[in-house]
């Protein structure tokens, strides 16, 4: 079961991805993560305006079997959340890099991007 790892994103070891847009990033969970979870039935998102530190648990994704924390891959302020996940959490399964995104951050330290994995490094990481 190979996973899709888009080349234009960076990845956290805790399986979140970021898409950089100026001093902001969009955050979601990887194709590998949604496949491992399967059947996503509920997503709990942070409130807009919340300030988060890199590595801080700030969302929850629930499959039929279990609840898992989602961590902020970089530090900053939550400026938007994907409210359509409230009624359609399954978007995380069907479009993990598109309409299944979680939240958007305004970065407080854009240098943190260098600590995230490249697509190649993340691919090697999930191969074990």
């Amino acid at each position, binding site marked *: 079961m190979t996973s899709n790892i888009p080349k234009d994103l960076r990845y956290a070891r805790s399986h979140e991805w970021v898409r950089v847009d100026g001093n902001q990033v969009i955050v979601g969970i990887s194709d590998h993560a949604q496949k491992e979870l399967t059947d996503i*039935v509920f997503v709990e998102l942070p409130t807009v305006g919340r300030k988060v530190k890199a590595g801080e648990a700030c969302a929850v994704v629930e499959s039929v079997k*279990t609840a898992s924390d989602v*961590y902020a891959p970089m530090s900053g302020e939550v400026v938007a959340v994907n409210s359509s996940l*409230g009624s359609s959490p399954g978007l995380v399964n069907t479009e993990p890099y598109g309409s299944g995104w979680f939240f958007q951050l305004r970065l407080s330290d854009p240098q943190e991007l260098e600590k995230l994995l490249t697509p190649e490094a993340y691919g090697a990481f999930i*191969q074990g």
Partner: protein
Amino acid sequence: MKDLPPPRRPCRLWRVDEPEIAHSIVKRTPLYSVHARAGAKLIEFGGWEMPVQYSGIVDEHLAVRRGAGLFDISHMGQIRVNGPGAQACLNRMLTNDTAKLEVGKGQYTLMCRETGGVVDDLYVFLIGPEDYLLIVNASRIEADFDWMRQHPALSANPGSMQLRNESSDWGAVAIQGPRVLEFIDRCFPEKTPGATGPERPSLMRKNQIGRFRADTTEVWISRTGYTGEDGFEVLSPAAETMAIWERVSGVGHAFGLQPAGLGARDTLRLEACYPLYGHELDEQTTPIEAGLGRFVALHKPDFTGREVLARQSAEGTSKGCVAFRMTGKAPPPRAHYPIHSGRSPEVAPPIGIVTSGTASPTLNVGIGMAYVPPDHCQPGCLLAIDIRGRLYPAEVVAKPLYGRKP
């Protein structure tokens, strides 16, 4: 999501919360290579490395509700009790009345301590004259066997019966779902010559067990299950279980049969409101509290736990096991979440605790089982479930949460 493991390692996403598990060596069933080949996600359960899912829990769950599913249940334990004293001895160890069993019949029953606390819940089958086969939970095999070995009913009549742990001799599969009747006889076309009971598996009634043959393999087939659907469980010598799985898979394929893992087994049993040892049942909980009084034969003269169970049956208990469903938009309830009264949710401390919970694939709503005080046990009672510090409304509903159409 730090819990996510890399692929091809046992999946830790499903945290199995059975506190007593501390096995250093994880056992594999005779079907391990089939699961690995099928790309199943594997987890540890009751000391066994078991498939938690193949295609996905919801897909497998719905396959069992609408068509048919095939489960590896080789982790379950088998304890054999035979001899002239077996019936009387078992009737002192178990809560249901073994005197009611004829050859070829089984019953659900429980084994209790003097306190009424449950050692295990199990099935007992009378497979021949004075010959009983007990099917017990994987995580309780050693506890059950030790408990039975030191039971006074045994030491009172040594030599009148034999007690053997045959768990490693047997493998087992469960074939469950509304379409199973269409193909079960093709899988096992022949009754063992001389065996008692119906000629074909499809002619057996609920809880019956019979001896059948597939090619050269002799199997025990019972009309039982843990899914809330019609179905069968097939017990075979461990060395033959692989051939049985492949035979059933081959015949059932045309009828929509697909493999199903422990994840779907758990959501299916929860919709059907069957208890799971370690969740709804443990040594601190009695069958009366668990709502299993119909499997406690209080008319029997003496059995372990009778005094406490008779008193609870007459006078009531301080808690009861209920089924509930979430009434608004909410995360799925999970085991160990605290419960408050829906009448006065702000009052601390909590009145109860969730023992099992999930997002129901059939009902599309959060469901669960829980222990709450007696004044909150009636269907319609309002509860508030504490999920990560927020209260979400739920209501007690009649068991089962899901029942198949007759």
